[in-house]
């Protein structure tokens, strides 16, 4: 597996994400936000958590227009896999690669704790390491994780099985308890919880490692 990890000014989970890909056996390429081209032959691009561009204007809004994101959008259009975690999820919605929007948490507070989630779609390259309906625990750490979409979009996401993860105890007010969303071709995943912070039981949970192992399995030949 060849994985790219994009760093924006203010990203702070980029190294953790690179380490998580590497721990699953990936050859990792670091990408700077000003890079207009991605390294050749990538299987997956990761957009890390953090506070890109200081969350100015809206979370992820400036990063979504960075040169590297134009390249990521082209990569996704060619059928490439893209994983956006936390701020990376916000960037994906701002870039129009995933529908809906992430708003300020309904409780207005920054939420930083491990949450329980249910796997709603285990049929993707990202999620095949979990079982359909399995309960997992991953940490969240965000101020703007309140996923919102209109009723038509929500029912479409539901009908197409594009809600990948749901909160069991909704920490942020997200519509329909949505914690992770898939693109129409199921190759772009945005998620608020941090799998890269749950690779080892000493971190409180090792449930995140299944995501990176699943990707490594999907791209084992590469």
């Amino acid at each position, binding site marked *: 597996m060849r994985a790219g990890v994009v760093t924006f000014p203010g990203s702070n989970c980029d190294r953790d994400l690179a380490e998580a890909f590497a721990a699953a056996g990936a050859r990792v390429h670091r990408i700077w936000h000003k890079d207009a081209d991605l390294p050749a032959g990538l299987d997956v691009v990761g957009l890390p958590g953090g506070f890109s561009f200081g969350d100015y204007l809206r979370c992820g809004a400036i990063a979504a*227009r960075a040169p590297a994101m134009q390249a990521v959008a082209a990569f996704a259009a060619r059928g490439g896999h893209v994983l956006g975690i936390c701020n990376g999820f916000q960037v994906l919605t701002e870039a129009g690669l995933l529908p809906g929007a992430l708003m*300020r948490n*309904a409780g207005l507070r920054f939420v930083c704790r491990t949450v329980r989630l249910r796997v709603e779609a285990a049929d993707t390259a990202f999620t095949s390491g979990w079982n359909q309906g399995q309960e997992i625990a991953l940490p969240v750490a965000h101020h703007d994780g309140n996923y919102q979409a209109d009723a038509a979009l929500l029912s479409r996401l539901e009908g197409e099985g594009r809600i990948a993860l749901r909160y069991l105890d909704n920490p942020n007010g997200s519509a329909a308890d949505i914690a992770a969303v898939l693109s129409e071709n199921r190759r772009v995943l945005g998620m608020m919880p941090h799998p890269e912070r749950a690779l080892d039981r000493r971190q409180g949970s090792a449930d995140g490692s299944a995501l990176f192992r699943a990707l490594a399995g999907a791209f084992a030949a590469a």
Partner: protein
Amino acid sequence: MRARVEVMLKDGVLDPQGEAVRAALGTLGFRGVEAVRQGKLIEIDLAATDRAAAEAEVRAMCERLLANTVIERFRVEID
């Protein structure tokens, strides 16, 4: 030429910040505050001299960056 762009959450989108401000106003003793919506005001100085062209340009800026039209609406004024 100066453009003023007002960006507000669409009606029907819950505004938790506005709600917190409303509650705080009540705490301070202001009665009868029925609703508060919080938005952004963005001022842009433009080299353009043609008003219609400037407005079209600023509206394009709103669509592409200044507003997230999934959840926000915008209004453009050219001074």
